[in-house]
């Protein structure tokens, strides 16, 4: 039987830049700012880092991180795993520490998306055509989730007029949370009417059902749990690390229902088993989940076991996932407020959970949270990657 990661590894410092259209900052600038905030938070010197894992989808090597931070010939590994890139960098860093090979390592995610001269994440149109090496499923990200939204409505019998306000509530909630967060890209609350009446992107998803695109970076300093107290008292423990990758079952098999993300379900199973979580809705205080689209957050609530199948809309309507609800979802504002610099998002989520566990989340602070979760989902339901991390307060 494989061992669990639970309580073997601790986070002793984190940093996160303000996300946004950081025209004045290069990728290296953001790496430096995130890393030095983390150094200071952990009370360490740059030379204390023994190895680093660098998450980015666009920057293809570890070398830019070593150069930005002037590492002294230490190992740097670049990790890419779609939207779970930063989380996977963190995960691999945790495993390296747990192995006993290193005492202090860094995981850093960074993405500079706003130098391309175009909005959006690209993709869309033209994809899916054979004659590319792999016949990648067609369309850009909003195609993937518009497919799921259309199917969800059909599957559970939702009419547009009733379903759209549910999606709008998710957007309103996340933008409200983001308005309390000085590091968010968008810090303006929106109204349900604005969300409902925004221009249509891919039916039923309008502009406010989609997350923005931005630049960002975030970093974590990770040590073995048994030496964490040498750095600080309020270190945060890793309780579970799950990762699951689909094999295009959603595209190849008629039995795939497209109203859930099996990758999320499986990654959560792994992480819950490691953390010993039985009833996630009751046990988890807050969750940073991958709200790339409002429909994604809705379905994630069911995939993570926060709501029974088909009942997430009802839970959303009841406000159970609001900042003051039973289980705060995206208390920092989520991708909706931060945008999605792909290789940085997972560590940005961990940053919020880390601060919440330490009671340092300012106006967004939950009351005595003990367990928090982060979740990412990349690419298509049934042909994607999902990661789930559980962090907890020290005893």
């Amino acid at each position, binding site marked *: 039987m494989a061992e669990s990661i639970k309580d073997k590894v601790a986070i002793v410092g984190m940093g996160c830049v303000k996300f946004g259209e950081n025209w004045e900052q290069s990728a290296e600038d953001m790496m430096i700012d995130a890393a030095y905030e983390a150094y200071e938070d952990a009370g360490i010197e740059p030379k204390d880092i023994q190895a680093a894992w660098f998450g980015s989808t666009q920057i293809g090597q570890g070398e830019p991180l070593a150069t930005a931070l002037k590492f002294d010939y230490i190992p740097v590994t670049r990790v890419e795993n779609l939207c779970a890139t930063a989380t996977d960098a963190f995960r691999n860093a945790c495993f390296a520490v747990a192995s006993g090979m290193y005492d202090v390592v860094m995981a850093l995610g960074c993405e500079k998306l706003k130098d391309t001269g175009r909005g959006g994440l690209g993709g*869309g*149109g033209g994809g899916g055509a054979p004659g590319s090496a792999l016949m990648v499923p*067609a369309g850009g990200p909003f195609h993937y989730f*518009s497919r799921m939204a259309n199917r969800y409505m059909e599957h559970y019998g939702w009419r547009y007029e009733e379903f759209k306000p549910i999606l709008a509530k998710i957007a309103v909630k996340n933008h409200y949370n983001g308005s309390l967060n000085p590091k968010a890209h968008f810090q303006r609350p929106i109204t349900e009417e604005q969300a409902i009446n925004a*221009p249509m992107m*891919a039916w039923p998803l309008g502009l406010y059902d989609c997350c923005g695109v931005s630049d960002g970076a975030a970093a974590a300093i990770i040590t073995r749990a048994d030496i964490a107290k040498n750095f600080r008292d309020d270190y945060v423990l890793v309780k579970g690390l799950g990762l699951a990758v689909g*094999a295009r079952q959603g*595209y190849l098999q008629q039995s795939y229902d497209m109203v859930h993300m099996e990758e999320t379900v499986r990654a959560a199973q792994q992480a819950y088993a490691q953390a010993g979580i039985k009833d996630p809705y009751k046990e988890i205080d807050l969750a940073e989940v991958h709200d790339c689209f409002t429909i994604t957050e809705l379905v994630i609530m069911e995939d993570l076991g926060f709501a029974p199948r088909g009942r997430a809309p009802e839970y959303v309507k009841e406000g159970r996932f609001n900042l003051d609800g039973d289980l705060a979802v995206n208390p920092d504002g989520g991708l909706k407020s931060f945008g999605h610099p792909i290789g940085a998002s997972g560590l940005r989520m961990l940053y919020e959970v880390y601060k919440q566990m330490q009671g340092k989340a300012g106006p967004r602070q939950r009351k005595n949270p003990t367990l928090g979760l982060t979740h990412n989902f990349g690419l298509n339901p049934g042909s994607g990657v999902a990661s789930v991390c559980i962090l907890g307060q020290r005893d």
Partner: protein
Amino acid sequence: MVGIVSYGAYVPLRRLGRGTQGWRAPNEKAVAYYDEDSLTMAVAAAIDCVGDIDRRTIDGLYFASTTSPYKEKLAATTTASAVDLRSDILTMDVADTLRSGTGALRMAADTIKAGSARLLLVTASDCRLAPPRSEMDQTFGDGAAAFLIGDTNVAATIEASYSFSNELLDMWRSNTSRYVHTWEDRWVYEEGYFKVLPPVIAEFLKRCGLTTQDITKFIFYGPNPRRHGEMAQKLGLKPPQIQDPLFSKMGDTGAAFVPMLLVAALEEAKPGDKLLCASYGDGADVLLLRVTDQITKVKPKRGMKVHLASKMIVPSYEQYLGFHHQPMGNEEGGGGPSASAIAREREAIYPLHGTKCRVCGTVQYPPQRVCTNCRAKDNFDYYRLSDKKAKVFTRVLDYAAPVPAYDSPSVDMMIDWECGGRGNFEMTDKRINDPRTDLPIGMEVEMTFRKLRVGGGIHHYWWKCMPLRESWLEKEEK
């Protein structure tokens, strides 16, 4: 005796006609959409023609057109691949003249007679361009016909044929021109059409030992209704002997015109009927067909009838110029698809082959070496999906896609084939007014071979899905 074993046709869905703003001609004409060309229309007609006949028994394909997508490269091989014919077959393009359709029919009959093949597919398709708002643009239409030629189970025997070669620059297009050119029309008709066709037909009938009265239907080329009518007079035909030239419904479809009219004639033909087919262009081809008892057993799936009756009226002439006349992207420029990748994936691209696992029977697309269900490795048969119906499982209505307004929202469908297997395809020939109710999940769709894009000098084809053609039968009447 050699003849037509089976026949089929394709008429594009879109028509200019009453209801098309800015269209002043009295007739309707059929026009190819931006993702259609002579090759895609040939594929559609060929599939309409072959029906349930085992495609592996077909020994070759002749592709006839004046508008092949390539100057060097066969359209016949692409067409044959899309129709899923064998590889050890005869493929050839017959090109460059309005007679190419009838010429290909003659050549196919001779090939069968010579014993070089037992069953041959002939496609005739055209998609000619005339300058916008020109007289020719009022008449030029797009379409295709297809015939299976063989010597058993023949529905119409090819009794005799005759050709006449005449060097004349009455209508032409040089290898660098986009548009068809023509000399002054009085000269074109007086010194060309009317001077050539009547004596050729007379000579042919004489050689056959027949008179005009012996022929049930005359199927002949005409550039427009007026000239076609004058020709009927000159030939001394009685009205029932004249095959409706369908100018009012589809226009002059070039090399496909006479073949399409032949399909229309065969749809109405009775055993014993004698049909005379005459094409015109750089001379003339004439064929005599005799309809057999077999005709009652051969019916194309849609033929001319259903294809003509199912249509979408293009709202404006401007829109037509957008999808029909504008080049599809930078044809010569870079950014084209990869020829080597296309070749590698040809099973998936042209015949729309998925794989069917020999162990668990799961159908999957695109082809998978390791089964998605039971993980059996390299243990599958290719399985054709192009002729299978499917239902929409879920959909994408993309209002933000960078497509021309006439094609927005761009629609992507995740479909489940009735035979198993799931695919994700763009939807074409669709119309959407209310996203809540139009193109719903669960609707039936069929596959259609279309052009995705042009780039780097490569025409890139794949399949799309579309609402069943029959679903358009009554829409325009409402």
